[in-house]
């Protein structure tokens, strides 16, 4: 039952239980504070990019702006539309908020993974990991949670009993289900290279820059994962779910007060979690930057704590990239979104997965690398030509039939 934490094997004692409870509390508080700072960070960076000042009144540099907004939302009147489905309307914000926090539990938040260490730390005489849970299915847990997160958005739009939120939620369900396939398939390559599903195992396998999965899998899965994750988060340029210009406010139009705040919180929390997941999967998580035996060590800080600093620095880079994308790219049209997901990302991730699998098999069996590469490239080329031919035929048929609508 308790395979998620090595500490809980055997007899159930008080100290491990307290440590686990403290970890739960720490993860929850870190999540909330990170979200608060992320909202501020996004507003500040975007205003910088748009030559504005941004929030600067509440607290130093406007740091407390999010807190002020949150308090304001708390005291606002909570409206429930007359035509809404009351039970589902109340349920939806929680279905969106709870998964956002759950997937944060499997991220290794620190610990010493250097020189073959497995990231274990000793607290009060108990060895444990600096992560809330290390389930055997690891990253699949995050995928399952992100699959559940669809419900919050879908049901919110539907239960509002209003047209625009419904359009938003129909878009959301189609978009998130489509991109989940690409997300999962690009992860396949990571599992293939590291040979494990657990997040701590994946981090432990990435000891130097050459072993970071972004290099070890070839850059393609990382790019696919980044795009699919952005779509999964409904962040620009994939924010068709809440396209202000078309859908008023999207799925959460009818929500007000604290229920709206929960959606808002979940959205930013998901951004933080997804950045941390990208760092864990592709950039070595809490591992320090090391190249050819030279480790960039932070002096005077114990290695276990240093992991947390590295993770924070790496996550910050991705958070900045997300804000940057939002400030730069215009929104996709709906058919472009579906084309990108189904016709580019899914075939590309599947093809790359097969290529890497062939390479691994060739290496294990001692086949000639050049022959294996040549044959796989030829097969991939033939598949690409077939796919293009299929697209061409379908486009021609559609033209002959006339428009569907």
């Amino acid at each position, binding site marked *: *039952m308790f*395979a998620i934490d*090595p500490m809980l*094997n055997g007899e159930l004692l008080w100290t491990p239980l307290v440590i686990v409870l403290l970890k739960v509390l720490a993860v929850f508080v870190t999540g909330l504070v990170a979200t608060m700072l992320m909202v501020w960070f996004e507003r500040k960076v975007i205003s910088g990019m748009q030559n504005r000042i941004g929030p600067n009144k509440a607290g130093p540099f406007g740091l407390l702006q999010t807190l002020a907004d949150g308090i304001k939302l708390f005291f606002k009147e909570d409206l429930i539309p007359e035509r809404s*489905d009351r*039970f*589902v309307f109340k349920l939806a914000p929680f279905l969106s908020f709870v998964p956002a926090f759950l997937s944060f539990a499997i991220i290794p938040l620190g610990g010493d993974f250097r020189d073959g260490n497995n990231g274990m730390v000793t607290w009060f005489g108990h060895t444990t990991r600096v992560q809330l849970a*290390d*389930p*055997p*299915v*690891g990253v*699949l*847990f995050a*995928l*399952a949670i*992100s*699959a*559940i997160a*669809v*419900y919050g958005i*879908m*049901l919110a739009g*539907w239960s509002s009993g209003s047209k625009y939120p*419904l359009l938003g*939620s*129909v878009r959301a*369900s*189609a978009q*998130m*289900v489509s991109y*989940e396939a690409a997300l*999962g398939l690009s992860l396949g390559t990571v599992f293939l290279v590291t*040979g*494990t*599903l*657990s997040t701590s*195992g994946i981090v432990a396998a990435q000891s130097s820059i050459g072993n970071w999965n972004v290099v070890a899998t070839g850059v393609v899965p990382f790019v696919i994962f980044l795009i699919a994750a952005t779509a999964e988060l409904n962040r620009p340029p994939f924010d068709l779910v809440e396209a202000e210009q078309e859908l008023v406010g999207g799925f959460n139009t009818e929500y007000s007060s604290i229920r709206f705040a929960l959606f808002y919180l979940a959205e930013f929390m998901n951004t933080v979690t997804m950045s941390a997941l990208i760092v864990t999967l592709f950039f070595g998580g809490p591992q320090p930057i090391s190249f050819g035996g030279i480790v960039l060590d932070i002096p005077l800080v114990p290695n276990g704590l240093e992991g947390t600093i590295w993770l924070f620095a790496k996550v910050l880079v991705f958070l900045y990239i997300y804000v940057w994308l939002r400030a730069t790219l215009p929104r996709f049209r709906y058919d472009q979104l579906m084309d990108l997901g189904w016709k580019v990302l899914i075939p590309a991730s599947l093809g790359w997965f097969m290529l890497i699998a062939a390479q691994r098999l060739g290496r294990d069996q001692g086949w000639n690398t050049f022959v294996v590469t040549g044959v796989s490239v030829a097969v991939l080329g033939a598949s690409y030509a077939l796919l293009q031919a299929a697209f061409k035929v379908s486009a021609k048929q559609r033209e*002959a*039939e*006339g428009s*569907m609508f």
Partner: protein
Amino acid sequence: MELFVFVCATAMIIVGALGVVLRKHPVHAALSLVLTLFGIAVLFVAQHAEFLAAVQVIVYAGAIVVLFLFVIMLLGVDQVENLKTEPLAGQRWVAGLVGVCLLGLLGAAIYTGADSVISRGEGIASNVAGDNPDANIQQLASSIFSDYVMAFEVTSILLVVAVVGTVLLSRRRTAGKS
């Protein structure tokens, strides 16, 4: 502890299953189905079949029921159904009969096979101690891709046939129009 988890999960499954049948609103019924699927996932975890639990949630709860809801929302059939009329005459009697038969079959299977049921996981030598967290997945993969590779491939062909058939059926109407 195991009994507690079992009772909770089973309660979830039964409440969800009853909800699927008894709730009049299609969306509420679909949500009850999600509850049932979650309960089954919890039971899988309790039996150390973590991979099955994850796949259960990703595929059934995360994709299939989402598509159910998508269709319900898109077609706008989210009104309360009129339960007075039967689409097929005598449908309810036949359904009841089939239900009773199914229950009888299950009961007979349990009654006759009670001796051969393994109560502790000896079917697959499971790695309970947690030395190797991937043991579960490795065992599953090696049996799918060696012993049962034929059945696995045939199933995937079946799925492809189903997809192609669906595309063909849904496109024929527009072809006939022109």
